[in-house]
């Protein structure tokens, strides 16, 4: 499991690699929240192209970061979800919160 963050101005791109379950979600929270906490990030992009597996705990982690971000007025997008991951994301309705709804 790996989390690579790259920041360009007010945009934070988060590339996740590996399997996102409850165990991984806890690590991702701990890594991302300090970056989202100061209100300077306005746009968050999750790149899930390296994610081989995700369950509802991963969805909870993404939704939680979205709430944190939007409390400062930011926006989110999710890119690259593979079939199995995409199916779980669709069930959750999280794409409806993304600016480019439907996943890109």
């Amino acid at each position, binding site marked *: 499991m790996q989390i690579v963050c790259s920041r360009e101005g007010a945009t934070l791109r988060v590339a996740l690699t590996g*399997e996102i379950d409850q*165990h991984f979600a806890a690590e991702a929270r701990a890594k991302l929240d300090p970056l989202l906490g100061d209100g300077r990030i306005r746009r968050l992009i999750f790149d899930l192209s390296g994610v081989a*597996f995700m*369950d*509802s705990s991963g969805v909870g982690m993404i939704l939680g970061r979205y709430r944190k971000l939007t409390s400062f007025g930011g926006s989110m997008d999710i890119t690259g979800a593979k079939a199995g991951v995409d*199916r*779980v994301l669709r*069930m959750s309705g999280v794409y409806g919160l993304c600016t480019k709804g439907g996943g890109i």
Partner: protein
Amino acid sequence: MNNELTVGFPSLSRNESLARGVAAQFVSLMDPTVEELSDVRTAVSEAVTNAIVHGYGGAGGTVTMKLVSEGDLFTVTVSDEGRGIGDIERAMKPFYTTDPQSERSGLGFSVMEAFMDSVSVVSAPGEGTSVTMKKLLRRE
């Protein structure tokens, strides 16, 4: 080919990946499609995570996973001896969670139902929970 495997492990979050890995290995012997394999991994992960987080919470205990194959029928039962569920029907409703503070979204049972053919739950407060899921493989 009929086969059976029962494993027990402590309720540690790192065992979620271990459990779904074991289930995937077991199902691999049944010659599943890539999608079926992914469905089983996800459903097992949901049930095992629930046993760890909701069943035992911080307390800790043993989670048991029983895997059975009979021809093309795969059955997995995930059990805990934890807190148990009072109202099972309500617990299984989409987006129902008793733990929103931990960023849970109440999707677990919906995912199990979507990815497996059937999900049945036996539980009572203080008496643990047992979730049995079935999937017929290569059902065109």
